[in-house]
């Protein structure tokens, strides 16, 4: 494992910054009006209920204020965000058929290679549309569905209508309302009762177009007693205009089912990443979130687990790395809505060069949810005096028979530890990188291998030039 890491560490950030020529078939005009929403709906051949849903969401979006808490979003001008960009290609089922420049981008990011090596299925979204989707045949035979949302809407319409934006509703906040109006692309997964998908499914989201928004919707239903590991990766090249990502993830975990949802996010530094993720967990089911946040200019991301059934479990392992100019406001929320539910939140954040890393989390225990257990642990590491770390945990407990623990640690990188490693011949930069990687290790070990490698690679890139 170590060997593999060292090999990959040599890749540079340039990989993520490769821009392709902005070649598209249809591009909505700037700003957001009902005409644009209708045009998107028409372009996508939405059923009537979906078109109405979009319009209703737009109304809610127009009425709602921006959030009054968290990082400042003043630089976001919705009139400047192109909501919908359709790449000039149809969705392909064969990798060879994907256009060269798009294919090349994903090849560089290692997506098809990952599919060949270790994945059960792969989806790749370029700008607003999914350009590639494939799933292993034996899974199809077992009734597993893995497809893009548009195809799902055609082929599994009743199921989509039952679940789509019922867990995250347009009324929740302004950006999900926006999402409801202009959503495009994303993945739909259904795992039938009792089916264990032993190798992960993966979706990769890539935003190429400047000044565009990405609003993909991910809907996953893991039926009774079934098991799934889903991986999502995100990246975009750097442009000088602001891009917006307001995706939405809805995860339904039925009785005795389990889902692991891993993300590594490396949006470019012009991205406002306002993503909403939520899981609803039934009796004895479990959700495990693994999350790595590295990119974007501003992130607001707090995956929420609602433990609805008795004995449901949630686990969150997240690492956030905020460099200069970044405000990464991340965390996790758990609602204990039933007795005997348990949760474990483990967050590590790193800030350097004036970056701001905030842990914002909530644990709520409902009055009926007796015999719950929850443990929250957040640690922050600041690499210099310019950087900032905040920990804002909210704990709201409404009954007495619970076992709740919280620990938080904020510290600076140890000069003695750097000296110790340097006394072993290791350069100052590598010594710092090792300490940071070690700090993030409890999370990294939960990530799929190639993502752990990518994360270490990102840490190395981030630490280049920190000495001086």
């Amino acid at each position, binding site marked *: 494992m170590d060997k593999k890491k060292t090999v990959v560490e040599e890749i540079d950030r340039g990989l993520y910054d490769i821009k392709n020529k902005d070649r598209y078939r249809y591009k909505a005009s700037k700003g957001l009006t009902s005409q644009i929403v209708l045009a998107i709906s028409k372009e996508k051949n939405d059923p009537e209920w979906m078109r109405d849903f979009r319009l209703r969401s737009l109304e809610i979006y127009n009425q709602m204020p921006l959030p009054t808490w968290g990082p400042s979003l003043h630089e976001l001008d919705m009139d400047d965000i192109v909501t919908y960009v359709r790449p000039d290609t149809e969705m392909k089922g064969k990798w060879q058929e994907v256009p060269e420049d798009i294919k090349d981008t994903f090849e560089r990011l290692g997506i098809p290679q990952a599919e060949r090596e270790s994945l059960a299925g792969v989806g790749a979204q370029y700008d607003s549309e999914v350009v590639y989707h494939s799933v292993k045949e034996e899974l199809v035979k077992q009734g597993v569905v893995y497809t893009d949302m548009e195809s799902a809407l055609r082929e599994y319409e009743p199921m989509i209508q039952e679940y789509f934006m019922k867990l995250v509703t347009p009324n929740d906040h302004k950006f999900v309302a926006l999402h409801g109006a202009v959503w495009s692309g994303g993945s739909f997964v259904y795992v039938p009762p009792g089916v264990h998908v032993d190798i992960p499914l993966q979706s990769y989201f890539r935003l190429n177009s400047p000044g565009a928004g990405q609003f993909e919707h991910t809907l996953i239903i893991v039926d009774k007693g079934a098991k799934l590991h889903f991986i999502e990766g995100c990246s975009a090249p750097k442009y000088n205009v602001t891009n917006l990502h307001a995706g939405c993830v809805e995860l339904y975990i039925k009785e005795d089912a389990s889902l692991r949802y891993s993300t590594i996010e490396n949006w470019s530094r012009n991205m406002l990443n306002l993503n909403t993720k939520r899981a609803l967990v039934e009796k004895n089911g479990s959700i495990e979130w693994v999350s790595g946040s590295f990119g974007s200019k501003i992130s607001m991301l707090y995956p929420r687990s609602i433990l609805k059934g008795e004995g449901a479990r949630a686990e969150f392992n997240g690492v956030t790395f905020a460099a200069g100019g970044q405000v990464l406001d991340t965390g996790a929320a758990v609602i204990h809505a039933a007795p005997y539910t348990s949760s474990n939140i483990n967050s590590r954040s790193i800030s350097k060069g004036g970056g701001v890393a905030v842990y914002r989390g909530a644990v709520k225990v409902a009055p009926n949810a007796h015999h719950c257990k929850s443990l929250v642990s957040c640690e922050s590491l600041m690499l210099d005096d310019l950087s900032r770390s905040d920990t804002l945990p909210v704990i709201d407990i409404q009954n007495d028979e619970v076992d709740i623990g919280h620990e938080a640690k904020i510290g600076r990188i140890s*000069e003695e530890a750097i000296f110790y490693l*340097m*006394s*072993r*011949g*290791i350069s*100052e930069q590598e010594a710092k990188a090792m300490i940071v990687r070690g700090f993030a290790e409890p999370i990294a070990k939960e990530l799929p291998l190639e993502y752990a490698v990518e994360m270490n690679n990102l840490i190395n890139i981030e630490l280049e030039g920190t000495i001086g």
Partner: protein
Amino acid sequence: MAEKLLAIHGLHAAVEGKEILKGLDLEINKGEVHVIMGPNGSGKSTLVNLIMGHPKYEITAGSIAFEGEDITALKTYERARNGIFLSFQNPEEIPGITVEHLLRTAKNAITGENVKIMAFKKELKQAMETLKIDNTYASRHVNVGFSGGEKKRNEILQMMMLNPQLAMLDETDSGLDIDAVRIVSSGVKHFKNEQNAILIITHNTKILEQLDVDYVHILMNGKILQTGDASLISQINENGFLHLGGETPDSGEVNMLHG
């Protein structure tokens, strides 16, 4: 004639404005074993940390040369790559980094080439056997949850694996029980050859039993007060440092050594 490895002349050094070394001279040749003894607070740890290049200590006068080259401007990792090693008195914990990973990264850095995995693993296994370290420690995080004795053995393991020209042992034996000292001592003996040299700071003689000590230096008040052969050790053990004269600003601690 013996080849000169380390040459320190007229070294004055301070930490946070307080002068600790006040004109120290020391020369070490290849193939030699040097022991430095002295009361607490006399500047022993300061000396080895200075040689290693700790940023906290400031050289106010004098020079440190290694293999004829002044190293005072070199970074710590450059000194390590030149062949200087320090076994720390209080080794740092590095969470998330395994012993094996640290050793391989360090060895790659020092040798300037990627070590061959199989050969490295074999060498590591042998060194761990010599030091009676359970092989599961290779995949444990550096010093995290290690006992005092385990941390010290881990230092000697690193010394054996990195094979420096000058190994400095800062109270590597303190806090160890008799068996552990014996194990560490045999590791040091195993390491020692005619091409390298060892500088040992100790309050104890157990670690020296398996070694041929060439010089013993008494460091007091920031200077080498006396240099002799191995027989000086037993004198100190019998009489302490006080009879050697000189000022003893922290005689309280010196008296404790007698007790």
